[in-house]
């Protein structure tokens, strides 16, 4: 039985550009799929096909059990979309925006108003509810846009880069909302350039580049593909580097990397935290002073680089890369 979002062999070209080149997706009900890829990888096109906004040249798409190509209007009853740009009317107030969307979902005027009030409260926009959206900050507009996608509670949600351009605090807040939605049983397809975001929110991840899915699996599976753990060690004095390498060699799985300027030695290992304790003891015995040592697992950044050969291009912000994988 196909999942709540199912796509098979989606192809879409725009002139010479192949935006989708045979994309297959299958998202089980109640789970989150993170569609991960750089700008221009085809993420947005995939979302637009699945939300009935464009027709693919080839392929099949089923959302909430409804054929997207045959019954687009029925699909629209079952989905919510929060696009890449905060799609709100900037001359309307927050309240007017939401009640307009409610009425277009065929609610009565009173129902739509009540729901708008509830959403404004929930998304901390109550104080700004009667100001034109023009006066809102970027984070507020995003929240209003997301609220608009939640005017009804559709079983399937699509969010196209929901946190692009948000500051870390707003991003965190949005993550909480998303997690709450999913806990309530919503199936979600989320596109992101932030590897950390996919790691945090998604049950399954599809890495997409040049219109093709180049890897899929859970965050852990993808990380495992990239290689295992490694010990990263920073010695206090540069002349201790050769000695440190000598100490670590027996613990390693072969091969090591030295970064002279940062006084860092990286050795791939297997054996976890126990091994780390032994390394530290041994270094101590040999009198090597260390500034930092840690057991690192690969991040999705590493996964991405190893898969595509290039770094995921971030939006306006730089990625807040976390040293230790989760």
């Amino acid at each position, binding site marked *: 039985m196909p999942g709540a979002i199912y796509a098979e062999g989606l192809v879409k070209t725009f002139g010479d550009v192949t935006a989708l080149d045979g994309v297959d997706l299958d998202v089980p009900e109640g789970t989150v799929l993170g569609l991960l890829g750089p700008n221009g990888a085809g993420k947005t096109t995939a979302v637009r096909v699945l939300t*009935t906004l464009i027709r693919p040249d080839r392929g099949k798409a089923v959302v909430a059990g409804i054929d997207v190509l045959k019954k687009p*209007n029925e699909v629209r009853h079952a989905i919510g979309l929060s696009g890449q740009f905060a799609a709100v009317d900037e001359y309307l107030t927050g309240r007017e925006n939401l009640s307009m969307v409610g*009425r277009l979902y065929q609610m009565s005027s009173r129902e739509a108003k009540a729901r708008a009030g*509830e959403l404004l409260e929930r998304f901390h926009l109550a104080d700004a509810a009667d100001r034109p959206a023009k006066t809102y900050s970027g984070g507020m507009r995003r929240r209003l846009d997301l609220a608009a996608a939640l005017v009804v509670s559709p079983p399937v949600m699509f969010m196209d880069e929901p946190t692009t351009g948000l500051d870390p605090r707003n991003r965190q807040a949005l993550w909480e909302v998303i997690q709450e939605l999913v806990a309530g049983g919503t199936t979600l397809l989320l596109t992101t350039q932030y590897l950390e975001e996919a790691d945090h929110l998604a049950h399954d991840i599809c890495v997409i580049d040049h219109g093709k899915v180049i890897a899929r699996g859970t965050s852990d599976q993808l990380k495992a593909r990239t290689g295992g753990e490694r010990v990263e060690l920073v010695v206090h004095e540069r002349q201790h580097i050769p000695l440190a390498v000598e100490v670590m060699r027996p613990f390693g799985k072969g091969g090591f990397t030295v970064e002279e300027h940062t006084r860092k030695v990286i050795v791939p290992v297997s054996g976890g935290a126990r091994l780390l304790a032994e390394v530290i003891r041994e270094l101590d015995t040999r009198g090597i002073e260390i500034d930092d040592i840690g057991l690192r697992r690969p991040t999705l950044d590493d996964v991405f680089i190893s898969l595509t050969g290039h770094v995921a291009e971030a939006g306006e912000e730089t990625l807040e890369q976390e040293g230790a994988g989760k």
Partner: protein
Amino acid sequence: MTAAGGTLSRRPVPRARGGAVQSVRDSLVVAQRNLIRMMRIPEVVIFGLIQPIMFVVLFSYVFGGSIAVGGSTDPDTYRQFLMAGIFAQTVTFATAGAGAGIADDMHKGLIDRFRSLPMARGAVLTGRTLADLVQTALTLVVLAIVAVIVGWRIHEGLLKALAGFALLLLLGYAFSWIGALIGLSVRTPEAATSGGLIWLFPLTFISNAFVPADNMPTVLRTIAEWNPFSATVQAARELFGNLPAGYPVPSAWPMQHPVWASLIWSLLIITAFRALSVRKYRSATA
């Protein structure tokens, strides 16, 4: 964000009503949205008024006296003759408004939002054109007042005059559908504005709006007589009683039956451009 509001209640998706009722309702919701916008950006309405008022004043006082209408160069005769032309030209400017508005909605991603909602197909465009119709009506009211101030009068009674205004509004509504198609076809709101305006100048000048067509070279005269725009101008002039005595009515069918011609042209334009626009809307991509 979890603190204050607590958990959001789940709200099932209401069933679609479908059919004409939903179409009308959705269109009115969108029209209301566009009217709220217009009230919040009054500059647009005000600038939209300045040009026709300038035309009324400039044409009346600069050209009046030099242009012979029905054999008379009396400035007042020209002023009576001119007004229907300026009214008609003004209503066609709705094209640019509709075009720019829809292009802007595409640009900002609003069309994507609307298209992902279970709403009636043509409602976003119908709502926009209805709102433009309201704006056009307001503009016409102000313009008529200015026209009366400079000496324009109706001579066939209020009912016929209202029928004349109704034909003008219908023409404006028809042209806003042309604007809708332009707005959906261009990439930026700026392109929609100029794309909505440029062709209006030849269209409104190769017509009977500002000068009688009978002095034009044959080719232009034929175009002018069959120009949809001329039919409405001629119809309005008849209904306002602004055709000067001795004004030769051309033998072309639309000039002989201007009210019918105006109706037919406007309804044809609405039917054709509505169909084209709705089709375009369904495949529109920002």
